């Protein structure tokens, strides 16, 4: 049925989005074509423009349409603290959840030899260069707690140690509102080892 070719291609293309299977892709395609053609046209235009002009910040490697991202251009941020994260979405999460006022560096993934991701793919050279320029007083490692995240944190930590930069890692432990008996053993062991002295009133 050649007259369905374009429709099928649309459905197929929509499946590149996370969480979209054949059924939802079909629903989306029919929705756009039957009820919201102008929305569809706008989506198509914005998507094309975004894919074309959003690149990486030259300084921190996060996603931006400019040469430097907003956070790197902001001169009121604290240059003495650099936080290294895996993904641009982590920057957003930290900005929303914490009062962090320092700088970021986005690796864009984590070291994973079996996926073919090594230091070069993550811009470790660029990070080393950034450390040399910025000379921060503290480097904060905010990685996931997977094996690959650990390896990445260790690698970045080595870069910082070679330059005499003090390094800290975000704590991992019991989630807020979590009950101890439901926390898995590894997390509990970490939380226990990383306990903090309670300040006296």
């Amino acid at each position, binding site marked *: 049925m050649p007259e369905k070719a374009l429709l099928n291609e649309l459905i197929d293309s929509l499946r590149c989005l996370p969480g979209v299977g054949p059924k939802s892709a079909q629903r989306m395609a029919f929705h756009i074509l039957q009820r919201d053609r102008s929305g569809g046209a706008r989506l198509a235009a914005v998507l094309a423009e975004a894919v074309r002009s959003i690149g990486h910040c030259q300084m921190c490697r996060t996603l931006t349409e400019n040469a430097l991202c907003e956070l790197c251009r902001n001169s009121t941020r604290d240059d003495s603290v650099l936080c290294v994260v895996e993904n641009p979405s982590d920057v957003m999460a930290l900005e929303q959840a914490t009062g962090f006022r320092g700088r970021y560096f986005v690796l864009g993934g984590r070291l994973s030899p*079996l996926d073919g991701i090594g230091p070069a793919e993550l811009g470790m050279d660029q990070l080393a260069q950034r450390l040399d320029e910025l000379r921060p007083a503290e480097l904060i490692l905010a990685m996931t707690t997977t094996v690959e995240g*650990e390896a990445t944190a260790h690698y970045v930590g080595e870069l910082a140690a070679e330059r005499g930069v003090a390094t800290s890692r975000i704590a991992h432990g019991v989630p807020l509102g979590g009950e101890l008996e439901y926390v898995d053993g*590894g997390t509990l062991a970490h939380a226990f080892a990383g306990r903090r002295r309670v300040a006296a009133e």
Partner: protein
Amino acid sequence: MQAAYILHARRYGDSSLLMELLARNSGRLACVAKGALRARRQQTPVQAFQPLQVALSGRGEVLTLSRAEACGHFRPLTGRNLYCGLYLNELVQKLTARQDACVALFEDYDSAIRELSERLPAEPVLRRFEVQMLRHLGIGLLLEQDSQGQPLEATNRYTYEVQTGAVPSTENSAGTVSGRTLLALRQGQFDETTTLREARQLMRRVLDHHLDGRPLRSRELFR
């Protein structure tokens, strides 16, 4: 249930993981852990280097992980030993065939990971594992005697060739290896730094031969 380790895991769909396991009775295999990433179903341990007991179902190339439980005390690998663990995983992944069961290989992997987690010096652990693994795969080093059928002498020097083994050499040049190093590889005992260095260089050459041009990306982590 059988003992297994996760060699590698990556996202598969929204909430599942596609894993490569090294299982005691089934060898290396691919399986899907359905819903492993779904919130609050963190009971399935999804970390490499954690000794597991797993139950698998299904047939064909990709199985289904129906149950996985952490077993035994687990001390996570840290620092350089973590890099070493990733190196072992890459070796196993790239040199073994899927579903080629070898209990001895699993046992050697298991003890290598335990030794790394106990923070023993990593290099002897890696060399022992490499030698044993190649032996289990039927492509072991020829360390019983030299190419002329004579016993290896600690004080002699040899040129090691993958096909023929240790060829006695009169030169003391860069490409040669001491009998002491070959004997150390055979026994898995490394007492000197020169022996360890020579063993590393030799094993690297032998492994590169068997990898047939495919690079080991985990080597890039060691600086």
